[in-house]
């Protein structure tokens, strides 16, 4: 025992005195003083969430595309329910008693604090119900807004709004059960800007559930902040026209303004009416669309991986020129095909021999097999692998093989085979230019999306650079878009080389005999284009066309895919040409109405 041991008693005393003090204070607070109980027992608070209206969406000419309409959800607060006249409520809502009973049963589940009972009541029913609400304690009406569309266009681009799921609620504090959220397209990507900020109103409610007024003079109330309006980059006229042209085809159109990267049109056909995925019938319609064998929900513009076919030839030309393995004047002969060491790639009848520009004009397969072979067998590199990797780096710089990182949440990468792919397939050092020669004509182990091909057209139009394609040009109140959309991506290929390729694409449309895309010719607009046929092992080949116009100071770059359309010139080129004319001139010249009529009259959907 040390001499300070008795101090333990003082410490015990301190503990007891302090604790007694706490207990006495608590006794006063909890038992004697009733002022705190009054507010909590006689009244209870109710938090009303104030939902902001979602931001509006305009097109590039400031035409209103998407706006809001009010709807009303009837809610049940299970803890506040009291006996009420159930027949009367059923009559107003036009539902049977069983439905009401099961609805109430459902919300008794303690998992939900307040559950929508009937969603999206019509304004007429709401008018009747509103007057009698006082008879139904525990029921509330919550006002929400749904999307409404001025034109039934651009479903894939705009995307749709759905209800949040459990997974999202768990990961994001902002959302609670029943909240709406943009699921795809602009609605999805720009959700944070469009949704605004929820507000709340804390109300004092008496024992009968009647609102007595704001709680503590509204000191906890927060106004809802309306969502930001967006100006998207599409041209509604052009989009609608394109959708009309594609009505009877499967495929995609993507048009880009080369000088900014703004997407003028983004079509995936077949499409659907955006208003189908709004309101009470949304789920039902969604299931219908999902089951449709034509896959209208599938966004081909971003997610369809097609081989690019001959539309890829300009890329080989550019790489060949930059690497110095060919020049503008390099000539190769074509004997209706390319034949070397047991490899053969067929070609159509055209003049021979031809130079680079004529090669592009005639889309000569033999020419580009030689170009590709020169690139891969370039003696500047130690081996095939190195040369191939250099080629691949160029191709990736154009935005292939990876998603362009545009403002979509579901953009796919396409595919440019890495060397190990071939090493695995053929064995290391057991492949060479001839083994993979189909790449020369845009076939084989190469897949691209329509968006990437439109971006290629824009890059050639700009003679060497592109901006990441995007769908929104202005967010109201922020007045800017993400930096990456305004940064120039420069291709490591000289401008002069782009001019040579553009020359070839000019002749492909505007040249004489042998030009593959004469169908795209417009008398007063110089269109530069390149046709392609994407091989399709499942059926008829796809018709592909990329183009930009006018040749000097291009204002539109476009890629068109028509599935099972076979030759580029048969469907894709005329459609692209009509789109270009429509955009640049506002309407299609009467002299070309026959072409429009032809495209509208054909139908590749029914043939299947």
């Amino acid at each position, binding site marked *: 025992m*040390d*001499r*300070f*041991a008795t*101090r*333990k008693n*003082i*410490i*015990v005393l*301190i*503990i*007891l005195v*302090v*604790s007694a*003090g*706490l*207990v006495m*204070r*608590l*006794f006063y*607070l*909890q*038992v004697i*003083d009733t*002022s*705190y*109980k009054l*507010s*909590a*027992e006689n009244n*209870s*608070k109710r*938090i009303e969430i104030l939902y902001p209206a979602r931001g509006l969406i305009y097109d590039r000419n400031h035409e209103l595309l998407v706006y809001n309409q009010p709807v009303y959800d009837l809610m049940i607060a299970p803890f506040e329910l009291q006996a009420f006249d159930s027949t009367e409520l059923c009559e107003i809502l036009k539902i049977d008693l069983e439905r009401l009973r099961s609805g109430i049963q459902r919300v008794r589940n*303690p*998992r*939900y*604090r307040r559950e929508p009972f009937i969603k999206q009541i019509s304004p007429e029913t709401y008018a009747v119900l509103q007057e009698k609400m006082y008879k139904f304690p525990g029921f509330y009406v919550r006002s929400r807004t749904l999307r409404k569309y001025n034109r039934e266009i651009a479903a894939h681009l705009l995307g749709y709004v759905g209800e949040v799921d459990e997974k999202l*609620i*768990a*990961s994001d504090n902002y959302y*609670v*059960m029943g909240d709406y959220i943009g699921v795809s397209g602009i609605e999805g990507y720009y959700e944070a800007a469009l949704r605004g900020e929820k507000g709340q109103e*804390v109300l004092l409610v008496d024992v009968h559930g009647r609102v007595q007024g704001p709680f503590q003079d509204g*000191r*906890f109330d927060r106004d809802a902040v309306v969502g930001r309006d967006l100006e998207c980059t599409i041209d509604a006229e052009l989009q609608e026209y394109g959708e009309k042209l594609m009505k009877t085809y499967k495929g995609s159109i993507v048009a880009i303004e080369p000088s900014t990267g703004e997407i003028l049109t983004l079509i995936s056909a077949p499409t659907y009416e955006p208003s189908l995925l709004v309101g009470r019938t949304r789920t039902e319609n969604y299931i219908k669309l999902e089951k449709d064998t034509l896959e209208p929900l599938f966004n081909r513009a971003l997610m369809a991986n097609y081989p690019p076919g001959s539309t890829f030839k300009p890329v080989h030309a550019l790489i060949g020129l930059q690497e110095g393995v060919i020049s503008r004047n390099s000539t190769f002969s074509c004997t209706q095909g390319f034949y070397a060491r047991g490899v053969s790639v067929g070609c159509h009848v055209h003049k021979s021999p031809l130079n680079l520009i004529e090669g592009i004009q005639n889309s000569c397969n033999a020419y580009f097999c030689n170009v590709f072979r020169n690139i891969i067998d370039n003696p500047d590199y130690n081996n095939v692998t190195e040369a191939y990797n250099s080629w691949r780096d160029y191709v990736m710089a154009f935005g292939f093989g990876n998603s362009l990182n545009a403002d979509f949440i579901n953009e796919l990468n396409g595919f440019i085979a890495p060397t190990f792919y071939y090493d695995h397939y053929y064995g290391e050092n057991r492949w060479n230019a001839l083994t993979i020669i189909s790449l020369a004509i845009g076939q084989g182990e190469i897949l691209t999306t329509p968006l990437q091909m439109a971006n290629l057209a824009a890059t050639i139009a700009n003679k060497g650079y592109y901006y990441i394609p995007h769908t929104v040009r202005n967010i109201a109140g922020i007045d800017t878009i993400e930096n990456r959309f305004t940064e120039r991506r420069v291709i490591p290929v000289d401008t002069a080389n782009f001019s040579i390729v553009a020359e070839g694409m000019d002749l492909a449309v505007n040249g004489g005999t042998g030009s593959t895309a004469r169908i795209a010719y417009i008398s007063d607009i110089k269109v530069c284009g390149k046709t392609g046929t994407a091989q399709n092992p499942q059926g008829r080949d796809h018709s592909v066309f990329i183009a930009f116009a006018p040749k000097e100071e291009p204002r539109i770059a476009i890629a068109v895919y028509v599935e099972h359309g076979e030759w580029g010139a048969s469907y894709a080129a005329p459609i692209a040409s009509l789109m270009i004319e429509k955009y640049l001139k506002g309407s299609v010249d009467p002299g070309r109405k026959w072409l429009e009529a032809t495209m509208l009259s054909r139908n590749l959907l029914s043939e299947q």
Partner: protein
Amino acid sequence: MTEKLHIEDIDWITIILYLVLVVFGWLNIFAVSYNERFRSIFDLSMNYGDQLIWILTSFVMIILLFAVDHRSFYFFAYPVYGFAIVLLLAVVLFGTEVNNARSWFRIFGVNFQPSEFAKLATALALARFLSGWDVKIRSWKSMVTLLMMVGVPAMIIAVQPDWGTALVFSGFVLLLYREGMPGWMAAMILFLAGLFLFTLLLVPAEVIIALIAFAFIGFAILSRKAKHIVAGGAIFGAFLLVLRLMTDLLSLDLNQYQVILITLVLSTIVYLIMIYLYKLKRFLLVLAILFGSIAFTFTVDYMFHNFLKPHQQMRINILLGKETDIQDVGYNLNQSKIAIGSGGFMGKGFLKGTQTKLNFVPEQSTDFIFCTIGEEWGFVGTTLVIAVFVGLLIRLIFLAERQKSNFARIYGYGVLSVIFFHFSINIAMTIGLFPVIGIPLPFFSYGGSAFLAFTLMLFIFIRLDSVRKVYVI
């Protein structure tokens, strides 16, 4: 060699009290989140799921504690303390900034608060130092060493700035008092801690007026002579009156604060002369304490305004309830009192609380968890919780006193000091008896670091106690 562990030597009473607090605490954290959206008790996205993981982790740590050699707590006391200091310095430099303070490390998604473990380390180090055979607590050398041991971690934590947790270190006064620190010194330290807090809470003039009033009362008690008291008061009053008149007549630009300081300086000169003439040396002490306190107030005030960045000042002001981003002064406290008060005698029942679920009470599952107890379990529940805490604290004293080893006893008092400080200040602040300084309620509040630290701290002592019969250092 570790002796065989005798299960019957483990103090099960303490463990049962601990478990009662843990289970009840977790139920209350669960109740806070309950109404939101119930999923499962193991839901990691909710506080209670997260806390459950921490509780289970702590149980594993307890088993590990019993597996290590009991002597290692003695031998590693200093290294652990040193390591804690390094961690505290590191968190000030590299920690994640949360609520304007750098108190946290974020490692693999887990938040870790070194200051919680610094308390444990300090308790070990104090025990190690004081159990030395040649240490005389009343020597100045030991006193300075001890104050440094407590002061250094407290200062670093104050720099984060987390002045609430820094103040917890003043709780070690209880340990030092038990081990022989002079009573007046213990009182002095507590007085300074209180002065520190009130300097932050009140405007300087108020604090100085209060200090002068205290000094006068002290002087009156000391002298007990009417003529002294009247004379002292008259001198001060006369100067004050003259100065007030002068400021009004000559329109001097003096504020209230300056008037009081000048009055005090002038009166003091007269007091000193009188002390010299009438040989009243004993009153010098009163003056010395008064001026020391004022100097301390100035230092704290100066540090607050010159060493802290505006957002850090904001952090402390928010902590003290002087500023909140949405409400005026006293908002937190008022909401907290409404919640507790609305519980009444019997409470609203488990999961039936409304005040603590509508986000009116801030930090409901951390610093203000006591509100949920008050609201749902009423006076019966709050009293019971206090009773269990008192039971635990008194049991700790009992255990500490039965140790043969000085190290174990002193460490036991360290544990007691920290738990007592947290327990009393946390509850006092939720019911408006103490300024809100934002420290957790042991074993109750949501927060992994604090829970783990309190558990380790307690069980190291239980571990030491379990070998009391064989272990004497």
